[in-house]
């Protein structure tokens, strides 16, 4: 390297060395402070607590969970609960979003006006406020167990939404929920917390998805739907077979970002006590073990992993859609 080039690049090298030194110093100070604080407060450090007994109950768990289970089980149960609400809200917000997107593209009139109003209203009210409203104001209005609302085998009351479940033991049968004193026996329950969270997340995210889908639909040239009409496809079939596949191809990357936002927003569960990652790992586990550093590290890693998985799925879909097109 010639002397002139070295002289020109030297300031850059010095600046990078200084930046590295500052970062290293901050990390070193932070670690030193943490060690001093942890010793003074008598905190233990490390992930050994994962194998000890949790000793608390989780209101809803997709795996077998009792107070005798370990903290690791609690974390798995919490992560599954987060995935459950993300999946539910993802499906519902996509369906609502598609409906609203087509509604906004309808000829001027009631349908279009109502769709636009829906987007403007629910996009501009904070998500946390919507979730709290559904939880404390709307679901609290549901009747008590004794006066449950019944649609076929489904029961709805202020304890939750009771769906019939599949019973494998002793024989395969449909396990219908029924009122039993002050509680409901049998079936599979969707807790009020899960209902409120799903409602809030679905409605809030559907407004953003509707805008993304609308932009995607608008990006499909008009000639496509006109050509579909001229070969005799009805409006609905033209939308389903011709317009939507092309629109989704355009909308998918942006929609993927919105699904990641949804997954992160599901952490608002902590505000209403739905046992998700934030509530169980960042709340209960952190305070019971007083190992906040380890618990929050797990929280951050779990959400990062969920985001990564969503990105992977979206990329796979994207590749398939592009391959379909033969590009």
């Amino acid at each position, binding site marked *: 390297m010639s002397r002139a080039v070295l002289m020109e690049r030297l300031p*850059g090298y010095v*600046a*990078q060395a200084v*930046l*590295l030194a500052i*970062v290293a110093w901050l990390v070193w*100070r*932070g670690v030193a*402070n*943490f060690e*001093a*604080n942890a010793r*003074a407060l008598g905190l233990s450090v490390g992930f050994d607590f994962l194998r000890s007994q949790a000793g608390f109950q989780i209101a809803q768990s997709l795996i077998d969970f009792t107070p005798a289970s370990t903290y690791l089980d609690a974390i798995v149960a919490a992560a599954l609960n987060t995935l459950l609400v993300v999946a539910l809200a993802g499906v519902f917000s996509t369906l609502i979003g598609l409906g609203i997107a087509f509604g906004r593209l*309808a*000829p*001027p*009139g*009631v*349908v279009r006006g*109502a769709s636009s109003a829906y987007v*403007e*209203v629910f*996009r*501009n*009210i*904070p*998500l*946390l*406020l*919507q979730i*709290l*409203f559904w939880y*404390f*104001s709307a679901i*609290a*209005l549901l009747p008590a167990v004794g006066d449950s609302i019944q649609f076929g085998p489904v029961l709805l009351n202020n304890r939750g939404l009771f769906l019939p479940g599949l019973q494998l033991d002793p024989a395969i049968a449909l396990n219908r929920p029924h009122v039993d004193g002050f509680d409901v026996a049998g079936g599979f329950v969707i807790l009020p917390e899960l209902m409120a969270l799903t409602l809030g997340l679905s409605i809030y995210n559907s407004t953003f998805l509707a805008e993304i889908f609308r932009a995607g639909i608008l990006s499909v040239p008009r000639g496509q739907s006109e050509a579909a*009409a*001229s*070969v*005799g*496809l009805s*409006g609905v079939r033209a939308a389903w077979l011709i317009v939507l596949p092309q629109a989704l191809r355009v909308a998918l990357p942006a929609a993927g970002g919105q699904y*990641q936002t949804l997954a*992160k*927003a599901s*952490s*608002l569960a*902590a*505000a209403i006590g739905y046992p998700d990652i*934030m509530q169980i790992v*960042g709340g209960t586990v*952190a305070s019971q073990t007083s190992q*906040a*550093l380890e618990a*929050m590290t797990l*929280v*951050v890693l779990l*959400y*990062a992993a969920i985001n*990564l998985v969503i990105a992977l799925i979206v990329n796979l879909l994207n590749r398939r859609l592009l391959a379909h097109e033969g590009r």
Partner: protein
Amino acid sequence: MTTHFVRQTLIDPRLAPAAAPIDWRRALFPTPAIGVLSLLLLALLAMSGWRFVQWAAVHAHWIGDSAEACTGDAGGACWAFVAARWKPWLVGNYPSDQLWRVWICFAAFALFWIWVVRRSRTASLQRVLLGFILLPVAFFALLIGGGPLPVVAPTLWGGVLLTLIVTLATFATALPIGLCLALGRRSRMPVVRWACIVFVEGMRSVPLLAVLFIAATLVPLFLPRGFTMNLFSRAVVAFALFNAAMAAEVFRGGLQAVGRGQIEAATTVGLSDFAALRLIVLPQAITAVVPALVNIMIAVIKETTLLSVIGVNDLLSAVESGARSPAWIGEANILTSGYVFLAATYLTVCYGLSRYSRRLEARR
């Protein structure tokens, strides 16, 4: 299943767009399917609108200073609760004899905003951005006090005041940091580039609530012993860093929108790297992303509600603690009224801002 390859009947000719007053028949029934949907929607809207008017106006309770005013058999809204607790909602626990400082801040902000929106010609970009940096500093100094003014700790602030200050402080700090991060990501120096990428992508993969939890519970453990930082400041720092990552992505888009030719031309006429950045690239990049920056502001306003989860006294937690106070506890409608009032407030502010953002976009 039969497949048509040739249409059997002619499509009706498309009518020219009408500029006439609304034709209700066409508004409701452009096609039979939409017509049925319209009628269903109208019925639904009429029903829920009627229920809402019943709740919000006919059976509402307007006057009173405790929950007893709102315990009727009809069960309507409790606007007495909203009216009686105006002070915690606007300013939190700010001392009553010092309230003039808050009013000055509100008035100054309102004037600034009116100037920005109405006098778009004199309100050049530089001046507006300068205002967003200077105003929060001035407000902060005035509200905290010191010197001849008695000191009012931020723990006493609350409600709209706290929401406004957090929004402005976040905006004032997140924008410069975000711009630096976006520039750092394009740097030729690998250490700088990777530091910026790791920070931005790391922040973007974590929920804001987790960042706030970390600021509330973990950060004190990493500070030197004896050095304390109150929850409010930690929350503001968390907000600033999180939104800096969001702003960095916006600025990155703006920087990418400036063509390579611009920088090459600037180099050709002999501008240094820094001068080219300052005189050629940044003005174009920032102008291009102003609507997106307004959208970030809307997001920040909505995000401030998360402060209530970690125990900072924002507008949402003022309403919740109000509904749990001894005078107002016991009636579900009281909390609901508070929520409806809050929803209307946020809706007005955020909808107004989003209209403004769209206007900026259309002007370009």
